């Protein structure tokens, strides 16, 4: 069975029906001027009513622990250098650079340097690598607070004749603060020392800390809000 063709004539006929219905409506509603006023009022009101938007804040997840949460796969283990000395300073520097997403520099650093290192030695090597950095030799805890707050971390003199990577301060459920340390002799885990004890120990080990001035890596994103 053939369907009725749909063309201009079909629309025109329906348009006439619509027009008749519309005029009948106008007869009931009022004259054309009233309609114009209605349209004008609608135009005036358009855009004036703002859609109410309520935002539902979502809970922040627990902060990363530690602040500088270098993945375990990227923890660099210490090695013996050509002179048979441990390379803890360089291993700590590599861990620090890896956290700062300077992986190429870290790789070349580890390939190039080994053996023991002094505070001035590590500084001169970073100078040569054209890396900006800040350091303290005074066991100033505010330096580590800054390193933790900016999520950069630091390399520090920690343990006897040893260097580790400071990964930030963390608080437990009781509000006590702990320093998170990545020991390159024991990679794959973080060690935690109570803050005051840590500061005293750090001063006893020389009080040196150094942070490379690069942007920290991105935090793990989380949904902070949504529209209700």
């Amino acid at each position: 069975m053939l369907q009725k063709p749909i063309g201009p004539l079909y629309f025109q006929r329906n348009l006439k029906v619509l027009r008749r219905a519309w005029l009948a409506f106008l007869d009931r509603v009022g004259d054309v001027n009233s309609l114009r006023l209605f349209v004008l009022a609608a135009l005036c009101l358009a855009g004036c009513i703002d859609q109410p938007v309520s935002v539902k804040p979502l809970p922040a997840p627990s902060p990363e622990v530690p602040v500088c949460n270098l993945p375990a796969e990227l923890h660099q283990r210490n090695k013996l250098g050509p002179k048979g000395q441990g390379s803890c300073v360089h291993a700590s520097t590599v861990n620090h650079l890896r956290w700062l997403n300077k992986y190429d520099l870290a790789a070349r650093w580890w390939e190039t340097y080994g053996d023991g290192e002094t505070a001035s030695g590590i500084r001169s090597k970073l100078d040569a690598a054209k890396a900006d950095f800040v350091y303290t030799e005074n066991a100033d805890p505010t330096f580590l607070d800054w390193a933790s707050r900016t999520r950069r971390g630091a390399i520090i003199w920690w343990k006897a004749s040893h260097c580790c990577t400071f990964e930030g301060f963390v608080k437990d459920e009781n509000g006590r603060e702990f320093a998170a340390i990545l020991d390159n002799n024991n990679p794959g885990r973080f060690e935690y020392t109570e803050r005051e004890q840590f500061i005293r120990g750090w001063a006893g080990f020389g009080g040196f800390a150094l942070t490379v001035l690069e942007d920290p890596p991105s935090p793990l994103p989380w949904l902070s809000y949504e529209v209700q």
Partner: protein
Amino acid sequence: MNKISIDITFGLICLVVVHAIAIGITQATVETKFAQSQSHLAPPVNIPRADLEKTIEKLPQPLTAPPVNRAATEEVKQAGGTCINCNEGAFDPVSSPIGEFNAVAKSFNAAIVRQSDGSYYCSLRDPASVWVSTRLRSTHAFPGPLENAAPRIQAEMVQGVLYATPEVAKTPSSPSPSLAPGNPNRPAVGGSLPKAKGFDLALYLDGSPRSKELKRWFETNEDLIFIKSNCNYQEYTPDNPLYKTRFASVVGVHNFPAVVLTFADGGHIHAAAEGMLPSTAATLAGDLFYYANLGREAKERARETGSGVLKTSSYNWDKLISPQMRLEASESPEECNGPNCTPRFPSASSDHAESLLDRARARQKEAVLWANPGEVLVFALIAVAGFLLFRLMRS
């Protein structure tokens, strides 16, 4: 036909007038209510002079730093002897083909001089409380013996927290420092260490032309450069170890290239992936400004209403690559320094506190038409409907 045109013109004129009056009345009402609600925050007008002249008693300061074992500071770590020829090796950061180094040189007024024994001389009133940032440029090719490796100083600086005294600082006798685009993280002389930035911007790039174009935008577009310099900025590639271990589960490789803007704590602000990236750098910058403003507004609203947490957080990349959030922008930014404050971008210039969020507001103020796209659409539809209606009635 002329009658229709006259009617429509007259209608539009009336629309403009009535709309302007309605906006004026509404804004006046809202601002009055806002001022009344904030009146308790206004400072008292008449403060007794005696109160002003009172001195605030200082509390005893806690001991911040224990005595340092100086003997251990410069000892060789993890070694029994001295480190001789430590600088020997094949490490050549300049000519090495792998990657790029952050080569930065900048001149500073204050100076620190490396002494012959390798220590640094700094001209500070209280050297016991100083942080030092050095940048010594070697004028010879690295590597070399230790003596040669001690660089001839070209540009140096001292960073002392409130203690830097440039007028007594020794200036290097070597040639004038060269100037180059600086590391935005480098602290300014006389200032403090770089503050924690409130925002993080990450680019996820592969080798595609779109990725290269996206990266080029952030190197050439003024607004994107501004955003980049005021965020913790990182680029990740699919083979980046940090990406593979931290972010691969969040931003899949199939989403590359992508832009993710978050607060420093990770709170999502805006994300745009391959198909959702705008076609121009200006549009992307506008999006980032816009959503940064929205994110800030949302944080402020959350602070005003309490935590209001309702469900556990999650991060759905597919959902968030095109966030559809909309919120009124506040016209009264508040200075806030508390721990729960919404982070703001630092000043782009030293003259005035222009922030990213201020720019976002400025953009809104510069708008030609004060209507959002939905409202414009309503205008257009009503106009067309009205025109058709008149045609219909006349025919």
